């Protein structure tokens, strides 16, 4: 257990040996180090779940709030304290299940944060129920007859909402993961990286071999500014699962619309202004 803020140290994790989460944590640290960020400049936000414990294992500022509610505090923190590099790092259930409504609307809001989803296609911490990305027919302790719902393809949902950065990575391909993480953090605006992550304890379908046989990198020729191509390629899911940055286009972000944020100092630095208050009061005379 270390309390230094150098090098994004980790204290003992609560994850299962062999879990894909370790690789994601390692990649995230590598990415942050690679970007030359000081720990105090970074805020990592999670909800509740196994993946959502990640912020605890990074030496940066950490906010682990409520299950499903990682995006709202992250976005608000960024709006008022824009010097922070804000990263949401949490699970698929957290992001797309309980937190689905925030997922939808924060894509629309387009605040400059980065969203890493540990997509193990299962609820890990609560011991293996179906998540929104669990395959149709997959049997669990609750879905005793197999999941009856069509799995969500989060990339397609993000693209359908006009998300500016949409990528899929695989935790076992560290170099690509780190490269995508770096690009996502650099992207100005909301960026989604869905990270395929085997859960060795509860997901006996989407295992390391299962993914290993299927994943492949998008061709270099893929045009990440072509939304239709992005949509088409992101739809691929089955025997072949493409990895990479499907879409990456800069768009105006939320603060670009508001003079208050665009032109003023960060709100966290604004002192009280009694004169402005007096003027407002006088408008009631």
């Amino acid at each position, binding site marked *: 257990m270390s*309390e230094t*803020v150098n090098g994004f140290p980790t*204290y003992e994790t*609560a994850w299962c040996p062999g879990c894909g989460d370790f690789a994601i944590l390692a990649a995230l640290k590598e990415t942050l180090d690679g970007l030359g960020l000081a*720990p*105090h*400049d970074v*805020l990592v*936000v999670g909800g*509740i779940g196994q993946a959502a*414990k990640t*912020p*605890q294992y990074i*030496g*940066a*500022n*950490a*906010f*682990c*709030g*409520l299950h499903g*509610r990682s*995006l*709202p*505090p*992250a*976005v*608000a*923190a*960024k*709006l*008022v*304290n824009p*010097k*922070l590099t804000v990263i949401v790092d949490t699970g698929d259930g957290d992001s797309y299940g309980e937190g689905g*409504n*925030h997922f*939808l*609307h924060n894509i629309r809001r387009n605040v400059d944060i980065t969203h890493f989803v540990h997509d193990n296609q299962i609820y890990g911490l609560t011991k293996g129920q179906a998540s929104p990305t669990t395959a149709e027919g997959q049997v669990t302790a609750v879905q005793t007859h197999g999941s009856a719902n069509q799995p969500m393809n989060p990339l397609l949902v993000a693209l359908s909402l006009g998300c500016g950065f949409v990528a899929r990575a695989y935790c076992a391909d560290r170099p690509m993961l780190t490269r995508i993480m770096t690009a996502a953090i650099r992207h100005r605006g909301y960026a989604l990286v869905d990270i395929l992550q085997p859960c060795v304890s509860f997901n006996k379908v989407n295992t390391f071999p299962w993914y290993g046989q299927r994943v492949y990198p998008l061709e270099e020729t893929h045009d990440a500014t072509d939304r239709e191509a992005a949509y088409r390629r992101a739809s691929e899911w089955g025997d072949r699962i493409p990895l990479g940055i499907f879409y990456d286009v800069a768009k105006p972000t939320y603060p670009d619309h*508001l*003079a*208050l*944020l665009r032109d*003023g100092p960060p*709100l*966290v630095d*604004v*002192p*009280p*202004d*009694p004169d*402005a*208050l*007096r*003027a*407002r*009061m*006088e408008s*009631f*005379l």
Partner: protein
Amino acid sequence: MERPDRLAILIGGSAGQGMDSLTAVLEKHLQRIGYWTFTTRDYMSRVRGGHNFNQTLFGTSPLHSPSKGSDAVIALDAATVELHLGDLAPDGLLLVDAAVALPLSAAGDARVHRLPLKETATASGSPKTEGTVALGALLASLGLPLEGLAPILAGHFPPEIAEKNVSALQAGAALAPVHRDAPCCVDPKGRILVNGNEAVALGALAAGCRFYSAYPMTPSTSIMNALAGWMDSGRILVEQAEDEIAAINMAVGASYAGVRAMTGTSGGGFCLMVEALGLAGMLEVPLVVADIQRPGPVTGFPTRTEQGDLRFVVSASHGEFPRLVVSLRSPADAFRQTVRAFDLADRFRIPVILLGDQFLADTTVTVPPFDVDGIVVDRHFGTPDETGGFRTYALTEDGISPRRVPGTPGVRVCVDSDEHDEYGRITESAEDRVAMTRKRMRKEEGLAAFLEEPEFLGDPDYDILLLCWGSTREPVVDALARLARQKDAPRGPDAPAPRYAALAFGDVWPLPQKELLSRFAQAKSLVDVEQNATGQFAALVRETTGLVCDRKLLKYDGRPLSGEWIAERLEGGDE
């Protein structure tokens, strides 16, 4: 004939007929020429149609409560005549367009004046100024000046339409059917016209709030509207969230990141905020939440008033953590308490809940301007100890751990909704749990010193002590004045007039007990006055002090309390 102290003007019609503008113009004018005013709004949960009315009282001294009867009515439709003629004063006047078919009850009533309102309006340039014509006629009937109205109209309408309204006003004045005396004017200078929600918004601004996130919900939306209008001038980011869950979690995030942050809603939205209220409690992130109550359960009466959320908010969220619940008694109180809420939230790192209601939110009154010069914004960041900014939850004697802003070099601010140690790291240790629970709860001891005792109102020689909280204070003030007057009225020898006083609570949780226990000693009887069906405040009083209210005056029909209603029941016994 002596001039009256006060008069009540009622303007009624259906939604979309422009009553709200008309009322706003009227009350602004009355305020500016020097009256105290008090305007309540009775409106339905719809955008057009139905029956709505506004009642504006004005007079020579501060006003506190709506009145059942009116002295003058502007009826924009037949329903208004039907519904409000019965409560018109014997020497009152009712103005209605000549073309409106009157109900039978109005036949031959000399108080009803059918004037060519629409015709005159059309002649003045637009049939839509019908109400303004009536206003001109009314003001002239009361001998009130029209000067000063032009700039007010200009503030409400685009130039061309404002002009037509000025003509309509003049033309209306020429129609004045009678002459009645209005109250004498007093010194017109320096008072503001404000409602409870505007006062909350001003308070937030005064406290240096930089972030307000909310989801629209009547009757809380006007706080968001007011702040949204001041985004640039007040340097506050107002964000409409996708739902109330997002709204409060955003506010928690903004507060964590270093600014003062607030959210506001009504009961239904508050339900959705309950989990994150606990989050603020557990993370010890300061937070201000306004619950502007309306009658429930659930959707209930969206545009009406009640005090039905008290028990819910004092214990909302699972598990245990300190919180402060402050009920708002008047616009002036709402302003001051909002400023105080931000201070105490920061000082103790706790959530503070402001409890308002539709009556307070929508009632506009004239008041002296709020005192802004004495306001000190202290963020209470404290001094972190030698471990730098790492011990986010340092175990201190008073339970308050010095707080830091993320982004500060050398600092790591780690917060977690799991039980945690001093560094904010997840723990499962029984010792940590006990230490952290005690640390959190210990803050209540410090908070006790900052609690405000209730306001004592009325006759120091009371026999009967009323208990009230929040916006009920205002009608109680009115009731006490009425009862004090009735005290001197002749009675039978067996019935000596009882003397009344009241305690009006602002802080309701933790419940301040000192004043209550000492004032109780003198009371022959304790009467609970609140706007709900079960006497929620009386239950809290019993729980914390053991005192039992001998009687409860409860109103739960969605309409505001009035001094008349309270006084009648106190003197007359139960319904």
